[in-house]
């Protein structure tokens, strides 16, 4: 918005509020995400009809399904970025940070899916949790990526971190098809896929489907917005860490010279 704050060093906290990791693009995407989330509330809780069997409980679908889809997407992005780091000659840390940021957002979304799913399960199945194929594989997916995030923080140089985590990022993504087709592979309490299935027809009421679509758009915008901010924050974390290391080395050298 302001053209002058470009020249100022980031000092006043009021100016840095928007200019730390924000840009024009993030502001536009952020506003769009907020508007879409408002629509999601309006359609999910208001305009969409109750289900014949599930009644009002069906409204949970509009957050439960988009969050897990975006989590899948996030982990696929992690895998792709990991591959880009590993298999390109430049070995750009930008890919590594993209992988890490995407995995973090994915973990948040899977956590939300599990918690919201438990509430939905309580209302429709009568139980919060069941050691069922879909639920179990999703829990395993969550735990795996928490492990991935822990591995990223084990220390070492940035490139050591990147190598380690990109191998893991490529292995962990195999779980996604397992989660998605678990309801087919094992007999399951969880219903099969309604929209992302292979028979091509969608057994869903029109307004319900539209509400789900609004949810997907809202969470996609949110994902992009979070990705932009998180990768930028991670870039600064790396810079600060490098500078801290440089300063420590300089201090040691100075000590030696004394």
């Amino acid at each position, binding site marked *: 918005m302001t053209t002058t704050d470009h020249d100022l060093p980031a000092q006043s906290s009021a100016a840095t509020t928007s200019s730390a990791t924000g840009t024009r693009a993030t502001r536009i995407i952020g506003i769009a995400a907020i508007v879409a989330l408002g629509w999601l509330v309006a359609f999910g809780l208001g305009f969409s*009809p*109750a*289900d*014949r*069997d*599930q*009644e009002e*409980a*069906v409204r949970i*679908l509009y957050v439960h399904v988009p969050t897990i889809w975006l989590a899948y997407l996030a982990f696929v992005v992690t895998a792709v970025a990991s591959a880009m780091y590993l298999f390109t000659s430049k070995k750009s840390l930008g890919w590594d940070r993209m992988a890490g940021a995407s995995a973090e957002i994915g973990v948040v979304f899977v956590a939300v899916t599990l918690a919201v799913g438990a509430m939905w399960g*309580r*209302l*429709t*199945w*009568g*139980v919060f949790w*069941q*050691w*069922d*194929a879909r639920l*179990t594989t999703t*829990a*395993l997916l969550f*735990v*795996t990526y*928490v*492990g991935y*995030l*822990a*591995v*990223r*923080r*084990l*220390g070492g140089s940035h490139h050591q971190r990147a190598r380690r985590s990109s191998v893991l990022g490529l292995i962990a993504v195999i779980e996604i098809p397992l989660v998605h087709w678990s309801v087919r592979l*094992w*007999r399951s*309490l969880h*219903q*099969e*896929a*309604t929209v992302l*299935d292979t028979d091509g027809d969608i*057994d*869903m*009421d029109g*307004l*319900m489907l539209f509400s789900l679509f609004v949810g997907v758009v809202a969470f996609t915008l949110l994902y992009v917005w979070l990705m932009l901010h998180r990768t930028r924050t991670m870039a600064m974390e790396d810079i600060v860490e490098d500078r*801290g290391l440089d300063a*420590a080395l300089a*201090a*040691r050298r100075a*000590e030696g010279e*004394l």
Partner: protein
Amino acid sequence: MVGSDPTRGADDVDLTPRTNVDGTAAAGPRPRQWLPIIVLALVFVAGGVIVTQFLRSAVDYYCNVDEVGVRDGCDADRRIRLQGTVDEGSIVQDRGVTSFSISFNGSSMPVVYDGEPGGIFKECIPVVVHGVIEQGALQGDRVEVKHSDEYVAVNDERVADATDLGCNPPGSDA
């Protein structure tokens, strides 16, 4: 060692090489590395628990009503999970005990459940009952409603969907 003051320790510089000029502890990354290791250990434990719980619950065979006595493992006198659709008009509740029958593919099985099933339990809906078949009836101790992957608005009169469940059109309960 931890709380050394740089202003007072300025005379014995050689003994405090791990303190920054500004007084902050230089050993910053060290405590930070423990947390990921603890998290990783927890991750392995949690992963193990999840897999064993899944395998343990898979010990109860998941059978459809028409597989009782036919498919391996779907026998009387052992714990199973039985899937079927609640027969129309079969639900009887008497002094805290719910009796009903479930059908799948033409076969039917009476169920006795000590309690009131939760969720969206009602007739014409697919359920999974955990229990043992004794004297021709499933003595259930857990009833879960397995809702379908079809989503239909309450006021939608799509009769075709209801016939899939083997029940009459649900216009009566709308």
